[in-house]
């Protein structure tokens, strides 16, 4: 693989799956306001929490990875929504003020 390919989430996902790992693909499907990554951006996650790619500027990846581990186990896809960061503990958000919707599915 070339350097560009090792950083390509969809090629990484295929390699991981072919190596027998559990894999989930997260995709930004909608954005509102100033979202850091456009619709179509991918983050891929394996069963151990290893990941490649991004769906934001690092703001919500942690939460997406946690949900992805669930999706890898259950096989049921999830639609996640993240908005402006608020003060409430246990919630993550986008400090840029945008809003994004992320679809997480298992690679089967």
């Amino acid at each position, binding site marked *: 693989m*070339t*350097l*560009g390919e090792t*950083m*390509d989430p*969809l*090629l990484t*996902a*295929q390699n991981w*799956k*072919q190596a027998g790992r559990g894999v989930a*693909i997260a*995709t930004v*499907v*909608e954005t509102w306001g100033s979202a850091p990554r*456009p*619709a*179509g951006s991918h983050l891929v996650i394996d069963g151990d929490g290893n990941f490649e790619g991004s769906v934001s500027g690092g703001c919500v990846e942690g939460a997406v990875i946690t949900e992805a581990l669930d999706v890898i186990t259950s096989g*049921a*896809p999830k*639609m996640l929504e993240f908005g402006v960061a608020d003060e409430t503990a246990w919630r993550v958000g986008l400090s840029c003020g945008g809003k994004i919707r992320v*679809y997480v*599915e*298992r*690679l*089967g």
Partner: protein
Amino acid sequence: MLLDTLARLNEARRARQAAVVVTRFSGDEPEVVIEGDELSGSLGEEIAKVFRSGKAATVEIDGAPVFLNVHLPPPRIVAIGAVHITQALARIAPVIGYDLTIIDPRTAFATEERFEGVELIADWPEDVLKDRPFDAYTAVAAVTHDPKIDDFPLSEALKAGCFYVGALGSRKTHAKRVERLKEMGRTDDEICRIAAPIGLDIGAASPAEIALATLAEIVQAFRRRDLVTLR
């Protein structure tokens, strides 16, 4: 998504074919549509739209949301000249995700040792382009300083509508080049498209800095182009 579906998408992407992934959130298996496949109905129209715009979109089909993710081939850079600048370019371009091919007939320059892991063709551009013509997704950077090598591919790049055409050399060198390209039949409008001196004006001095400035200019040309007129 099934592994087979992803493998089919990745195969198309490696072959530089544009592809759209159609996801219905109902849990049905996503569909991969490759450019050139037959399209029909309102979904077909929406797919044709994202192929043109290059931007992913959620659309409504029969009252249900459908996500269309579009994968266009990455830009390909063809550098004319296996010189110090292209040695640096060969290291930066893969990080940005752009394919790179280097052409230089001078075998003293075009050596495996200087360009390990890069697609390097030690041949005249006249011969190489017969089998591998430029397309609209190609950026051409001519950096040999030698009209015998640079002029022909520059002229071909303008004819092919490459999204970026850059040429190394001072304003004086470029003025002479303009005259030669006119003699080769290129119009003033075509010649105006050449980026010369090459690279964004960041005060680049070293070969690596010139490579960075050139790559930045290529990214700018690609991201700001009008896809509808390109395709």
